[in-house]
């Protein structure tokens, strides 16, 4: 059973001004009685402010809010890469954070080699990668291109490959930062079908989007983030209406 539970989680990101993350400043601060390692005079961004949410198994949650409202930060907290600076986060289930699907691609390696490395990075075992290679061949329609370096690929081909690798594993919790647009129209349909399959099999989906129609299509609940705080969390139409009224 997958579940997500945040209780008053906050994320404060220190912004080290020029010279502030230097050893000299730290030592000088120590010399004048400041505490070593303390943020001191640095600017701090409250990227997430006292967020408490419960997401249960089977729920599909949309994330809305203006740029800089904390959508990506919240997704990173859920992915486990941003430890909250206060409060607690509990995520149960196998998570796939699909923020940058081309993660780990090396241009001079061939398609097949990239499948192996990226697959391992996404947490697939060797057997799972081997089993997935045929699937990727078929899905991407790249054929012999998979045997040559990916730097020779067009942008669309590269996107096909990274999309295929990122979606090879069926996660229990799927985190999407905006829906991925993939290549030409004919491939788009195929990619949409593949993504929908994964979305429908995932036990929890959290997706951030600026598009009301995507939110209506995929989600039954919406979190509205405003300046790092939860402005509203509830049924799609209620929250969307409130959000659109405020903008």
């Amino acid at each position, binding site marked *: 059973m997958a579940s997500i539970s945040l209780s008053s989680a906050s994320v404060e990101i220190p912004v080290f001004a020029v010279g502030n*993350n230097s050893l000299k400043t730290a030592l000088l601060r120590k010399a004048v009685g400041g505490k070593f390692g303390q943020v001191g005079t640095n600017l701090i961004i409250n990227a997430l402010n006292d967020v408490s949410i419960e997401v249960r198994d089977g729920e599909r949650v949309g994330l809305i809010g203006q740029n800089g409202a904390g959508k990506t930060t919240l997704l990173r907290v859920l992915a486990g890469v941003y*430890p909250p600076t206060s409060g607690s986060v509990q*995520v149960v289930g196998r998570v796939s954070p699909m923020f940058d699907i081309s*993660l780990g691609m090396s241009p*001079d*390696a061939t398609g097949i080699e990239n499948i192996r490395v990226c697959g391992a990075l996404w947490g697939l075992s060797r057997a799972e990668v081997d089993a997935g290679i045929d699937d990727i061949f078929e899905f991407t329609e790249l054929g012999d291109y998979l045997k040559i370096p990916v730097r020779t690929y067009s942008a669309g081909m590269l996107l096909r490959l990274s999309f295929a690798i990122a979606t090879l594993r069926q996660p229990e919790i799927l985190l999407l930062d905006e829906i991925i647009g993939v290549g030409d129209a004919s491939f788009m349909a195929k990619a949409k079908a593949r993504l929908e399959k994964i979305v429908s099999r995932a036990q929890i989906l959290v997706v951030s989007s600026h598009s009301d129609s995507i939110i209506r299509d995929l989600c039954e609940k919406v979190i509205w983030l405003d300046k790092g705080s939860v402005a509203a969390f509830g049924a799609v139409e209620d929250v969307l209406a409130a959000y659109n009224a405020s903008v």
Partner: protein
Amino acid sequence: MTQAAVHQAPQPILHRPSASGVRDLVAGMANWRLWSMLGWNDIYQRYRRSAFGPFWITISMAIFVVLLGVIYSKLFHQELAVFLPYIAMGLITWGFIAGTTKDACSQFIENAGIIRQIRLPYTIYAMRMIWRSFIVFLHTVVLIVPIAIFFHMEFGWGTLLAIPGMLLVVLNQVWVAIVIGTLATRFRDFTELVATGLQISMFVTPIMWPLGAIPDARFIADINPFYHLIELVRAPLLGSAAEPLSWIVVLVMCVVGYGLAAMALTRASPRLVYWL
């Protein structure tokens, strides 16, 4: 990623201060498939389009060793057949030690993309760098063969002690990489400090000069951790075992160092991603 991941904000008082750091170290090293793959990938990436590939490292090391060997043997009035193998074994080992210490400064910053997306033990990035450097090191080790043939060096069973010696050096560099990597991510000018320190150490350590050249200089070597690290590999290759002192010093460094690494990871892992 784990089946169930619980991320708790750092507690003001931790009962076992190094617990999460130890977990990071163990899980990171255990994921050898990932770090060895990423390390190999770095090598491929760097040398795929060059004709000699990583053997460029071999070539440049060969030139360096021969030139320095010939010039310095004159300078210190040493016999070339003794001095050139000495300088070669020393430089090859030093190359690994200095290279890993320097690369440790950027190891987390280079992996920022992965760190911001997938939760993995930080130790993996240190192991990736160490593994890559070890492959580079193996490309310079091959130089032992022509040098041994040319100068009629004799190898015995004792020479094999260089292998556990090198393994201990590798093990030592893992904790060094973790400690330096965390510090250099937080304090960016730490990188400059490390670079300067390494440059000075190269000249202070008996690598390019024989220990016997300065009779009163014994203590310079004995208090120098780099000397003991190098001796573990160099001495057996030159036909004499490393002194027990060198083994003891490096073993103690490892014990203390892994403790430091665990502490560094425990302290840094709730914040490191925000420093990138």
